[in-house]
């Protein structure tokens, strides 16, 4: 295949699909993972409201989900994916397993960001009579915001990697192109271009994340 408009269109479509998958999955990953991360940070023994049983159970479930290799998860989830979005392939079908894989990872990242918040300021808020809810929303999430933003960047990067893997089992996007054209048809050029696009994408995500996180960090 020559480097022409067909190829460019193919890549642009792949890029669009990849961006859709990555951003939507990360969004839903946070919808599920953020509350779980908060729950882990709050119920841990040094947390706002320690609760060993809740912590252990949540911790265990998160670990289990994180231990399943993504490709296996992708296949295991096929019936569930079909049930949720009606199909288990292509861009839409990939969003479901990506979200499920991302959520426990995101929960861990959120948990560790929240644990970085100085216990002294949490205690100060408590001494003013703030409820746990107010402390979680205003102090924990507010004070951890630059860490949380770095976490979003890391999550986007990780999910970008996963999304390329999904190409192997009929997911859409750049990974799919790299595998179908580059790997199965030995069109090395296309594979390299696709990988290059993925690299640039990762750089942009990470760079933007770093800049934003510095900007909202009021501590230094």
């Amino acid at each position: 295949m020559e480097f022409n408009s067909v190829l460019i269109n193919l890549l642009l479509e792949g890029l669009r699909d990849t961006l859709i998958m990555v951003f939507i999955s990360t969004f839903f990953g946070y919808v599920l993972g953020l509350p779980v991360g908060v729950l882990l940070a709050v119920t841990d023994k040094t947390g706002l409201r320690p609760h060993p049983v809740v912590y252990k159970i949540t911790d265990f479930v998160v670990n289990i989900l994180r231990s399943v290799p993504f490709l296996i998860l992708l296949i295991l989830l096929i019936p569930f994916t079909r049930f949720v979005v009606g199909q288990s392939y292509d861009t839409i079908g990939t969003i479901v397993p990506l979200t499920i894989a991302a959520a426990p990872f995101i929960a861990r990242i959120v948990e560790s960001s929240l644990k970085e918040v100085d216990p002294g300021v949490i205690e100060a808020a408590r001494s003013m009579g703030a409820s746990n809810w107010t402390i979680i929303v205003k102090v924990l999430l507010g004070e951890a915001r630059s860490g949380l933003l770095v976490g979003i960047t890391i999550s986007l990067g990780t999910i970008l990697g996963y999304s390329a893997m999904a190409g192997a089992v009929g997911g859409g996007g750049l990974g799919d192109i790299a595998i179908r054209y580059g790997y199965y048809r030995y069109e090395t050029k296309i594979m390299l271009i696709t990988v290059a696009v993925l690299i640039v994408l990762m750089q942009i995500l990470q760079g933007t994340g770093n800049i934003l996180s510095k900007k909202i960090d009021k501590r230094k």
Partner: protein
Amino acid sequence: MSEAILEIEHLIKKYDELTVINDLSLSVKKGEVIVIVGSSGCGKSTLLRCLNGLEDIQGGSIKLNGEPVLKASKNISEIRRKIGMVFQSYELFPHMNVLDNILLAPVKVLNRKKEEVKDEAMTLLKRVGLDNKALAYPRQLSGGQKQRIAIVRALIMHPEVLLFDEVTAALDPEMVREVLEVILDLADEGKTMLIVTHEMQFAKAVADRIILLEEGKIWEEGTPEEFFNNPKTERSKEFLRSFTYKRKETVNEYADL
């Protein structure tokens, strides 16, 4: 003086096997300023933390206007609103500017209107000489400024009792005065305060009553005059001596040789 506002009876606080507060009873009257002194590790800070329900207690009781102050009780947040606390390391929220630091509790905890509290916050800031710092972030302030903001943050809740936990211990000497003057001013205004400090001159000036805490007990208590001029116990004499310095007399051991 008038009736007791804070009533501590037979308070016991243990960390595992270590008894930090040992059967301590104290009654604080409205408008009274009590300064708590003692060597490090005597339980001063722990006592203040118990008074704000930040520590669970193993015995006795603490009552604010007759209501129990208990970490585990359901309405502890409501009690804490009435007890202001200022910490040694300020504990301002680093991601909020000065005004937001001050407004958080009255707006989110007391549900007061932001605009109305803002006016009050500005008045208080003016009083401590920091009205020009309302939009600054904590990192842009000196230690003394941060501590004055922390005091304003406690004051805006209109607490019935104010607790100061070694609030100048982390400050450079030239910043100590600006903070202590604010506290002196509050004493003149008739605020009820419990102050843990190592600044003896300040203690002398601000206190109605001085308490020497040793081994988790009130070892000695009295007016500043009594305590500083006529300490009753050997322990308090020793404690006061630790603030004066004298060079050892040089003895030439070999003089006779």
